[in-house]
C-alpha cells in the first residue's frame, strides 16, 4: 500500500523531492481539518543547512505543512496528520515522542511578530529558562547576548534590555522573535511568512539574516513573495490545493518550471 502511495506521490510531484543529506524526511503526509483535506500525500526531503522556500497561492496548505514539522497542528482540535515525518531518522509522529523537547529542537518564527509582553531580555531568556539551558545568571546573559547578536538586534537594544519587547518597531520585533527562537539552539528554523507584516527595509534585514543563519541551520520559509523565495532560498517547493506540484533548485523553478501549474503561478496567472 505504501509503495503505491509512494509511486503516486512521485508521479504527482515534478522535480527531485529527495535530498542527499536529508535532515527532515516527510513521506506521504496527509493533513485533515475535520473532513477537509488540507495536505494531499506530500513527500519531500529537507537537507541539512539548506534554505528551502514553500510558495503557492493562498490556502494551498504551505503553512499547514510547515506546522507539521514541529507538530504545532496538535494545538488545533480538528486537525489530523497522517503519514510519516522524521527528523534525523526519528519519526516525530511516533507515540513515544515527547512533543515538548521536539519543539525546542525546531524553532518557529510566525507571520505576525509576536513578542511576549515582557522585557526584551525576558523574551529571549524565556526558552533557555524553561529548558534549563543556562547554569547561572552570567551564562544566561551570554546566551541572550549571543542570540540578539545573531539576530542582528544587539546593537539596537543592548542599552535597553529591560524595556518591553512590544515597544520595538515591527521589524525589530520580528528579529527579537528570531533571537528568541535561536536562543534555545534549535536545529531547524521554520518561518511562516516572516516578512508579510514588515516594510521593505525591515524585510531586507530579515532576508540578510536568513542568509547568514542558513550557514548553520536548516531553514524552511513559507512566503507569498516569489522575489523573496528567489532571493533567500536554494530550493523551492510549489504547492497548489494541498498538493506538492514541483520541487527544484530555486533558479530552475523560476526560469524553467517543468509543470504547467508552476509556470502559471510564476508568470502570475494563478494568484
Amino acid at each position, binding site marked *: 500500500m505504501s509503495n503505491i502511495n509512494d509511486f503516486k506521490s512521485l508521479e504527482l510531484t515534478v522535480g527531485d523531492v529527495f535530498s542527499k543529506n536529508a535532515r527532515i524526511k516527510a513521506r506521504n503526509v496527509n493533513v485533515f481539518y475535520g473532513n477537509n483535506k488540507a495536505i494531499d500525500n506530500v513527500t519531500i526531503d529537507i537537507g541539512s543547512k539548506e534554505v528551502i522556500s514553500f510558495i503557492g497561492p493562498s490556502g494551498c496548505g504551505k503553512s499547514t505543512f510547515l506546522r507539521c514539522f514541529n507538530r504545532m497542528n496538535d494545538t488545533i482540535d480538528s486537525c489530523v496528520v497522517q503519514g510519516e515525518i522524521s527528523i534525523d531518522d526519528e519519526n516525530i509522529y511516533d507515540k513515544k515522542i515527547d512533543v515538548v523537547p521536539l*519543539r525546542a529542537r525546531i*524553532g518557529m518564527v510566525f507571520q505576525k511578530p509576536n513578542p511576549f509582553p515582557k522585557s526584551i531580555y525576558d523574551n529571549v531568556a*524565556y526558552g533557555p529558562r*524553561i529548558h534549563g539551558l543556562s547554569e547561572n545568571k552570567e551564562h544566561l546573559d551570554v546566551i541572550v547576548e549571543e542570540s540578539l547578536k545573531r539576530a542582528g538586534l544587539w546593537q539596537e537594544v543592548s542599552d535597553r534590555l529591560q524595556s518591553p519587547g512590544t515597544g520595538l518597531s515591527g521589524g525589530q520585533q520580528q528579529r527579537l522573535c528570531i533571537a528568541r527562537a535561536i536562543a534555545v539552539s534549535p536545529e531547524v528554523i521554520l518561518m511562516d511568512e516572516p516578512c508579510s507584516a514588515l516594510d521593505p527595509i525591515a524585510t531586507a534585514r530579515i532576508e540578510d539574516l536568513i542568509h547568514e543563519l542558513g550557514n548553520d541551520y536548516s531553514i524552511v520559509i513559507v512566503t507569498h513573495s516569489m522575489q523573496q523565495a528567489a532571493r533567500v532560498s536554494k530550493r523551492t517547493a510549489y504547492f497548489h490545493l494541498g498538493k506538492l506540484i514541483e520541487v527544484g533548485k530555486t533558479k530552475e523553478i523560476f526560469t524553467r518550471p517543468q509543470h504547467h501549474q508552476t509556470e502559471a503561478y510564476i508568470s502570475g496567472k494563478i494568484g
Partner: protein
Amino acid sequence: MFNFYLLSSVLLISLIFFFLGNNRAKNLVKLNQKNLHSLTHYYGVYSLLASLLPALGIFFIFTICDDLIFAELIKKHIPKEVVASKDYNFTIVLAQINNSVEGLIFGTPPQWVTNAAEIWISWIHKSQIITVIICISTALISGFLGYKKISGNFRSRNAVEKIVMSILAVSSVIAILTTIAIIFSVVFESIRFFALIPYDEFLFGTVWNPQFEGAERAGSGQEGLSQYGAIPLFAGTFLISIIALCVSVPVGLFSAIYLSEYATSKERAFFKPLLEILAGIPTVVYGFFAALTVAPFLRSSGSIFGLDVASESALAAGLVMGIMIIPFISSLSDDVINAVPQSLRDAGYGLGSTKNETVIKIVLPAALPGVVASIILAVSRAVGETMIVVMAAGLAANLTANPLDAVTTVTSQIVTILVGDQEFESAKTLSAFALALTLIIITLGMNFYALHVVKKYREQYE
C-alpha cells in the same frame, strides 16, 4: 382608564397622519413625475412623529403637574382654624383629602375634608376635559403642520433621523438622571443624619448600637444611648468579603483557566453554561443554603475540633457568598484569558513550553490586569450583597476578625433598620442612608478602578 382612551386616540390620530403623509408623498410622485428626496414612507413617519410626540409631551406634563397644582390650590379650601391649630401638618391633611377622593374613608372625616375632596374631584373632571382638548388639538395641529411641510424638496429622511436620534438621547438621559436622582436622595438623607450624629463618630466609632428615641428614654440599651460607629459593620462586611474571595478567586480563576485553555470545545460548550447557571440562582436561595445547610454543618464540625462556632457565623456567609461570585470571576476571567492573542500561545508552544508553562508564564501575566479587574468587580458585588448575609451572618455588630463569630454587615443593617414601621425623623432610620451612601462610594470607587484597569489592559495589544 381615561388616560388609556386618550393615549389610544392620540395614537390613532398620528396613525391617520402616517397614511395621509404617505399618500401625499405618493401623489407628489405621481403628479410631478419627479423624484422626492426620500422614500414615501419617510414622509408618513415624519407626519406621524410630528403629531404624536408633541401630544405625548403635553400629556405627560399635564399628568405630572395637575396633582401639584391641585395641592397648591386646595390650601385655600382648608378652614383657617385647622391651619392655625397646633398639630397641623399639610402632608397629612393632603393625604386625608386624597384618600377621600379615592373613596378610602376611615371613620367619619370632618366636613371640610369631604368638601375639599368634592372640590378636588370637580377639578379632576375639569382637568381631564382640558387635557383631552389640548392633547387632541396638539396632535391635530402639529400633525397638520408636519403634513403641510411635505413637498418635493423636504428632506424627511434626515428629519426622521434627527427625531429618532433625539428619542434615543432622551432615553439615555433618563437612565443617567435616575442614577443621579437615587444618589442625591441618599445624599440628602445622609446630610440630615450627619446633622444629628457627627460624621467622625459615624466613620470612626467602634460601637454600633442604634436605638429608637423611645427606647433611649426607657433606659434600655447601653445606658440608653444610641451609638452609630460604623466600623464594626464595615469590618464585618470586609471579613465576609475576604472569606468569599478566598473561596471564589482560586476556584473561579482555575475553572476559567481550565475552560479557556484545557477544555475541548465540547467540554467548554457543556461546562460554561452550567457554571453560568450559578449566577442565575436567586441570592435568597443561597441565603437559606447558607443558613440551613452550611452554618449547622460548620457548627457541628467545629464542635468536633472543640471550636465554638456561632450558629450564624461569618464563615458560613462568606463561604456561600464565595460560591455565589465564582461565576463572576470565572466568566470575566475566561473572557480576558480568551482575549490573549493566540499568537502568544503559539510562540510559547513553538519554543517548546508545555501547556502549563504557557499558561503560567505567558497567558496569565498577559491577562493579569483583566483578571484583577474581574476580582475587583467581584469584591464590589460581595460588598453590596445583602440577602445571604441577612440570612446567614447574623445581626450582632461584633468588631472581630474571628470568622467563627457572628458579625453583621452594612447591607444587613440597612435592611433591619428599614424593615417595618419607622419614624422618619429618627437618627436610626436616617443612619441607613448614611450607610448606603458610604457603601455606594466604596463600590463606585471599586467599579471605577476596575474599569480603569481594564482600559489600560486593552491598550496593551493595540
